[in-house]
């Protein structure tokens, strides 16, 4: 077929000087710049664009407005593209979806022959038993169903998001929307006008050219931009959330928009009617025909039948006639033909005009070839008319999804046979066709009023109500055409649901609209009920004997239109914290690990060697992620007394003490060392991953009454921190500082300020690893320099950098617990073998006092205790359970392993575990760890595994 492209049309979007080649289903075609993929296909004579979801019936364009599923295609590696919205590009490789091996010869269309065996609810009824076979069924069904193909090798796309703010957001760039935007900007508001099309105009873009109305749009757009308004074209608003928060999508960008008020001027769209064979390619909506004609200069065929229930269908018919299309017949549901120039033109051309009639059936092979037109009331005979396409202009549905999401209610207007909106929430205004039929003049007036009101002008601008408009614009009240037998009558084209399916579902008891939807899947496909929603509700009402109003509607949720997952994901934004020495670690080949937001070196290739070096000579670890808080003021000691289980008032200047912080349940929240630098200045360290939580916890108590005269400053990132530890650490550090590091002048658990390699540092002599060691805190800007100086100076001392893994082993050899590793949300310090830190005799009411007093009195039920194995046991892992046979020989879980490593120092596997207190108290008692069905023995060990007296620390 050829000759579908018309001569240039007024207002068309084409650049006819720029032809574009593209491919569809293996064939080459040509379109023009400005075409959509669908318009180019139509111009090329392609009628069948896709196959349907269930029966694999051939489908062609229906709405040309981005709603229906019929035009979904695969373009390159992108599945489910709406070809009626996608601009044609040169070289596009367009593939049909849901057809195999080809669109014309789809083997799965045989499923339709079996359709009498596939009733509504078929999947629920059939495949759920025997359950064992479901995986096999699923494999077949998944291949048969689904739309498009995901290419797992598709490169990551560039997606991003943007936040926008406006006093007034106007959704829809038709006459009402433009008028609203201009009115709002005239009131001094910041206005954002969002439209889904490439240019403003709304329905004016594709209806019969109207120079006056068009000039108004152009003028409005200029005024808007001159007054500082913003226009977003090609942008779909897809969601409405609390506090006037909108989401919108343009291409690969997600907009998150905060609006003071919103004017919804999103118009209305047509939906198809229910009759036999209503899915044949060539049967399309009147507005689809108008779009093809006026925007792209294309007619979908050469012999048309127009079916309508209002005056819009007559305009379609007259436009087709003027474009040289043979209009075979026009059927109008209304008993009387309307009057007007369109009718006169059609009459003059000798077109068959049938008042009181509608379409009852369509027939054809790969597209519509003839239709049966019947009287609506069944009073007279039928007309069989040959045609190659049908324009349906029968039913309008307001584009009100956003208003529904915002909380507006639907109410069915029986006069108009259309949904209307009421109960609008604050800050939501409607204008134009979405609020009901209106004339061109009313659209402008409504827009102006809504825009002004949204901008805060509450003056009541008059709008002339017009009954005339309602009479000429009402929708069809027919639930379905008179039944003349023949082909299936589809309600939902996405899911191939027919009127019989709906009746069956209701008969089976699914007689509420929400249940009916879920059972029959009506409205659950790509169009999300846009094409079938009203028909489904009306059929449900008819089947249950309820009114349409009482039947209600299913809940609308975001997104209004499909959104690519990449758009929701947006730009990759995963904050990561790096120490000042990070680049050095990476250069040295460190294996990096994630710890909270931080990246830390796990090891530099050989953790065991790192452990040995540190025990024998000296090691250096980057502990910059440690939480570091400065607390200042006269109230610090008193505050710490209440937040920690330890004593603090007696800590003298220059001294360091280990502290445990609990909540009122007595549960350990965090631990670390606190140094008193002066009477009123303290330096408090927290765990690395608990740093922000500890700060928020302390701030809460400080700001709610316990922080009188205390200031907290987070210095976590201000200071880099390194732990220099090992027998040679003093000698090494002494080469870099004039401060006397001798044990007398700088003993264990002391804090000193010192210049190290010319950098002002705070030194803490502490020993998590069990050796002589110094934690060096320096301003982070110097971190990279100081680290390098220590590494260089350490060459003569056998220094080796070590990572988190070695540190875990080293601390385990000292039986120190790690908060979050060996403790959980129920662990108290007494059970965790840190009762020595808990001072119940403090004279203040500290957090956890009551709970810990009770635990101290009753004794803990479980205890954290060390264990040794006397051998290398690599099968022992953290998290394994400890079991014991009960009286009847049945194994019971009595505890678990919280830390476990092979100790290079002791040459055996050691760990920490939770055991019943009675067992934990028995040193050398044997118990068993459950490993893959085997029982591995281990012995209870009390105290540190290494240097139990702590001589190495203090020396």
């Amino acid at each position, binding site marked *: 077929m050829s000759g579908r492209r018309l001569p240039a049309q007024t207002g068309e979007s084409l650049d006819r000087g720029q032809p574009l080649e593209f491919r569809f289903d293996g064939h080459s075609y040509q379109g023009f710049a400005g075409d959509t993929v669908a318009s180019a296909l139509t111009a090329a004579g392609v009628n069948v664009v896709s196959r349907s979801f269930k029966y694999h019936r051939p489908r062609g364009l229906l709405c040309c407005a981005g709603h229906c599923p019929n035009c979904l295609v695969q373009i390159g590696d992108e599945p489910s593209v709406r070809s009626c919205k996608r601009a044609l590009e040169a070289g596009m490789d367009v593939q049909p979806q849901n057809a195999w091996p080809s669109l014309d010869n789809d083997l799965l269309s045989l499923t339709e022959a079996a359709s009498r065996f596939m009733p509504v609810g078929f999947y629920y009824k059939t495949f759920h038993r025997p359950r064992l076979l479901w995986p096999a069924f699923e494999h077949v069904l998944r291949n048969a169903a689904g739309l498009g193909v995901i290419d797992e090798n598709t490169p990551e796309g560039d997606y991003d998001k943007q936040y926008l703010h406006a006093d007034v957001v106007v959704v829809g760039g038709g006459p009402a929307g433009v008028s609203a935007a201009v009115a709002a900007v005239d009131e001094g508001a910041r206005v954002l006008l969002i439209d889904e099309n490439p240019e403003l105009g709304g329905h004016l873009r594709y209806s019969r050219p109207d120079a006056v109305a068009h000039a108004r749009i152009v003028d409005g757009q200029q005024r808007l931009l001159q007054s500082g308004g913003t226009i977003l074209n090609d942008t779909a608003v897809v969601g409405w*959330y*609390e*506090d006037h*928060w909108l989401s919108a999508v343009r291409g690969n960008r997600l907009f*998150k928009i*905060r609006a003071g008020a919103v004017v919804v001027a999103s118009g209305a769209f047509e939906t198809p009617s229910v009759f036999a064979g209503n899915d044949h390619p060539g049967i399309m909506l009147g507005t689809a025909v108008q779009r093809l004609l006026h925007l792209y200069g294309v007619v979908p065929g050469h012999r048309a039948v127009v079916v309508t229930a209002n005056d819009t269908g007559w305009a379609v018919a007259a436009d087709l006639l003027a474009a040289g299309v043979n209009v075979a017949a026009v059927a109008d549901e209304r008993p009387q033909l309307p009057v007007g120039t369109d009718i006169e033109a059609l009459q003059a051309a000798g077109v068959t005009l049938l008042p009181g009639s509608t379409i009852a059936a369509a027939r054809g092979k790969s597209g519509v070839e003839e239709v049966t037109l019947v009287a609506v009331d069944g009073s007279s005979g039928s007309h069989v008319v040959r045609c190659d396409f049908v324009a349906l202009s029968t039913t309008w549905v307001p584009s009100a999804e956003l208003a529904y999401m915002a909380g507006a209610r639907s109410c069915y207007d029986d006069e108009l046979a259309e949904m209307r909106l009421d109960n609008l929430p604050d800050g939501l205004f409607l204008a134009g066709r979405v609020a009901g039929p209106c004339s061109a003049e009313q659209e402008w007036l409504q827009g102006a009023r809504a825009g002004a009101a949204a901008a805060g002008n509450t003056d009541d601008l008059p709008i002339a109500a017009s009954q005339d408009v309602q009479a000429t614009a009402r929708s069809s009240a027919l639930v379905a055409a008179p039944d003349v037998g023949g082909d299936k009558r589809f309600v939902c084209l996405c899911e191939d649901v027919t009127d019989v399916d709906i009746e069956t579902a209701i008969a089976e008891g699914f007689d509420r609209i929400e249940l009916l939807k879920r059972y029959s899947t009506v409205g659950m496909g790509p169009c999300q009920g846009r094409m079938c929603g009203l028909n489904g509700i009306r059929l449900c009402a008819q089947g249950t004997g309820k009114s349409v109003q009482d039947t209600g509607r299913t809940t609308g949720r975001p997104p209004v239109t499909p959104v690519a997952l990449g758009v929701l994901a947006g730009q990759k934004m995963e904050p990561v914290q790096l120490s000042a020495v990070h680049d050095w670690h990476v250069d040295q080949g460190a294996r990096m690990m994630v710890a909270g937001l931080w990246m830390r070196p796990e090891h530099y290739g050989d953790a065991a060697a790192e452990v040995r070096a540190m025990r024998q000579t000296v090691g250096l670890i980057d502990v910059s992620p440690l939480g570091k808080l400065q607390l200042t003021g006269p109230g610090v000691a008193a505050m710490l007394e209440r937040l920690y289980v330890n004593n603090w008032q007696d800590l003298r200047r220059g001294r360091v003490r280990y502290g445990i912080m609990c909540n*009122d*349940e007595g549960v350990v929240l965090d631990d670390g060392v606190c140094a008193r630098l002066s009477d009123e200045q303290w330096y408090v360290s927290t765990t690395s991953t608990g740093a922000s939580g500890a700060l*928020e916890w302390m*701030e*809460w108590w400080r*700001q*709610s*009454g316990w922080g009188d005269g205390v200031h907290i400053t987070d210095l976590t990132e201000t200071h880099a921190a390194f732990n220099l530890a090992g027998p040679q650490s003093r000698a090494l550090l002494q080469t870099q500082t004039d401060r006397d590091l001798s044990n007398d002048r700088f003993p264990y658990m002391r804090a000193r300020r010192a210049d190290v390699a010319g950098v002002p540092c705070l030194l803490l002599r502490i020993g998590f690893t069990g050796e002589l060691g110094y934690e060096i805190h320096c301003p982070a800007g110097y971190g990279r320099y100081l680290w390098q100086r220590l590494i260089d100076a350490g060459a003569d001392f056998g220094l080796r950098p070590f990572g988190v893994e070695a540190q875990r082993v080293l601390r385990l050899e000292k039986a120190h617990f790690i908060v979050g590793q060996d403790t959980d949300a129920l662990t108290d310090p007494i059970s965790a073998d840190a009762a020595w830190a808990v001072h119940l005799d403090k004279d203040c*009411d500290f957090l956890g*006092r*009551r709970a810990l*007093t009770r635990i101290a009195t009753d004794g803990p039920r479980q205890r954290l205790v060390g264990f040794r194995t006397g051998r290398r046991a690599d099968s022992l892992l953290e998290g394994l359970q400890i079991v014991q046979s009960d009286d009847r020989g049945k194994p019971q879980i009595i505890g678990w392993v919280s830390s476990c490593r092979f100790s290079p120092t002791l040459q055996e596997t050691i760990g920490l575990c939770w055991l019943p207190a009675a067992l934990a108290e028995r040193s050398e008692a044997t118990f068993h760890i459950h490993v893959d069905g085997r029982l591995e023995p281990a012995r209870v060990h009390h105290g540190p595994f290494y240097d139990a007296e702590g001589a190495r620390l203090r020396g």
Partner: protein
Amino acid sequence: MLRLECPNCGVRNTSEFRYGGEQNPRPTPSTEVADADWIRYLYERRNVMGVQIEWWYHRAGCGIWFLVERDRRSNIVARTWRWQPDGAAAAEGSHSP
């Protein structure tokens, strides 16, 4: 997304804040409070269907903890304010929406 008015910074998206639970003053001295009151403080939340006074923390902003009087049925916030020692200082320094 809902918005919330920080008494220090003004109105911001709720994603800037951390919720801190309903206001739940600690009975003191803890060791002398009746068991029932202590259990209520530790474990029982009123979870009202209506107006609640609750804590929020401006994590991405100024770092203050503040109190919010919010109707949990409508999310309407009547007022937000910083805690004051005398307990009645709601008016001072608070933003009224």
